[in-house]
């Protein structure tokens, strides 16, 4: 086990969760972060899908890394990602049809998610399969937790529900409370991501740009 979770591997996993987060630090994958976070459930499913796809794409590319000719590597990477995205998309359609309808094109568009190509190019092409898997997992979860936090607040404040269950009691509405329609609109996702970035940089001074 010592070899499996060396300090380097740990760093590879923990880095993307906070100080090298793909969404808040590298500002990648913003498009889907805005599009699928109006409700918590699609955000969860999207985060899970991306995690699975990045992790396995990383492993496959890492296994192939010594045999892929440099000039066509992008195409090879795209084929691998496209195959995994198709598998995930079909599984969702089969077992979670409602969510797959809500996510619509965004599952397919995972192919164009910058986090994927970024990890494949920057990490999997030059690292061993196990590290690549951990790296994919870390980046996927780093992406997912941002989506989940944003989705949590957008659904709670925008619809008064969580995962479709009503959590704000009817008494609140009777007393004059109403849902915030702006939360449902995409701009609010951007502002929430900005808030996460704000908190994160306030807590980690070394992340602040001069």
């Amino acid at each position, binding site marked *: 086990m010592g070899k499996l979770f060396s300090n380097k591997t740990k760093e590879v996993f923990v880095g993307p969760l906070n100080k090298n987060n793909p969404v808040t630090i590298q500002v990648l994958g913003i498009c889907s972060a805005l599009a699928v976070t109006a409700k918590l459930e699609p955000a969860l499913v999207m985060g899970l899908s991306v995690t699975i796809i990045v992790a396995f794409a990383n492993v496959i590319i890492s296994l192939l890394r010594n045999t892929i000719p440099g000039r066509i590597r992008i195409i090879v990477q795209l084929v691998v990602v496209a195959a995994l995205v198709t598998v995930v998309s079909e599984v969702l359609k089969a077992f979670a049809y409602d969510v797959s309808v809500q996510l619509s094109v965004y599952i397919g568009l995972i192919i164009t998610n910058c986090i994927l190509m970024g990890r494949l190019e920057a990490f999997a092409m030059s690292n061993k399969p196990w590290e690549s898997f951990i790296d994919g997992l870390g980046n996927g979860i780093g992406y997912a937790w941002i989506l989940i936090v944003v989705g949590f607040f957008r659904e709670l404040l925008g619809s008064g529900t969580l995962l479709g269950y009503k959590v704000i009691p009817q008494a609140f509405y009777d007393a*004059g409370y*109403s849902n*915030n*329609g*702006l*939360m449902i*609109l995409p701009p609010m996702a951007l*502002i929430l991501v900005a808030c996460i970035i*704000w908190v994160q940089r306030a807590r980690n001074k070394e992340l602040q740009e001069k």
Partner: protein
Amino acid sequence: MSGLRKFLDKIKPNFEEGGKFAKLHSVFDGFETFLFVPNTTSKKGSHIHDATDSKRTMIIVVLALVPALLFGMYNVGYQHFLAIGQDMGFWGTFFFGFLAVLPIILVSYIVGLGIEFIVAQIKGHEIQEGYLVTGFLIPLIVPVDTPLWMIAVATAFAVIFAKEVFGGTGMNIFNVALVTRAFLFFAYPTAMSGDTVWVRTKGAFGFGKGEVIDAFSGATPLGQVGTATGPTADIVGTLGEPLNFWDGVIGLIPGSIGETSVIAIALGAILLLVTKVASWKTMLSVFAGGAIVGAIFNWIGPDTAVAHFPWYEHLVFGGFAFGAVFMATDPVTSSRTETGKWIYGFLVGAMAITIRVLNPGYAEGMMLAILLMNAFAPLIDFYVVDANIKRRLKRKSPSNLPQGEALERS
């Protein structure tokens, strides 16, 4: 006066470094400079001294808003008693409006100034005076029935995200009061549009209760025009009486609290123009832009009621005049170059009418038009300055001089 000065001097040590209330230093400082002109001056660098500082500028804008506020209070009462079919006389009417509007003003100031105080405390600088005007504007641009907690949430959002994150007073890109309204508009559309929010039908603190009479209709003129299905619309007042251009000028019609009366707004505009706090170029060009685009739609617009709405009525109904006088001229968020003011103002007016006419979802286009142009104001300034530089460079280079002149110089 000197008693007050003595009192301040006496308690001042408490608020200085090491004093009991050193944490509240910026709060004390804010009140002290609010009451007295500070007697310290800058020691370094060159400064241009002027009788007006930003506190005085802000106070002038607040004074300019007072007619619109007073008229707005009266109109709130007037509409209310029309709706319930009672007559309370002038003072009763005004008093009702006062009771209905006062909580909104208090909420706006308490929330906004509270955040300003906290931020000043955290950053350790003085309290900035910009919120004096913003806090006064917010109550004037919302419907009287907006729930107070919504105003509190929207004010907090606007002050934090439209102002403090950009660096506070003078650094904001968007007009803070309009961001408040935009937040309300998009977050709680049912409380900000439709025909039930503009006239208060319930009492205020138990005063002026009554049953709404049958003839009552609470839609704003622009709301009626915007939702009309036919090619023409007859705009009517609270009791169904037809309205014309002059009703819009006088302003005893449903609408946001301070926006209805062009006369009250004009009084404020005169003060702003005489003291040169606002730019007449921006103001004039907003009206010109609105009038021209309104006339174009009258002439070759689509066959809808709002496109046929006469251009001169566009200028007096809704928030057009209020926005033109108090919002578009905001020195922080509008263009600063003189040519830029013409372009900026014209586009604000033109966009406002375009939104009103072409987008049935928005009966009122002024808010969105000004916010949109706020975003473009720096770009306009950039190109105006750039064009100026290019023109002067051209004048200098010998190849562009007239033939004879170039020869003479060489």
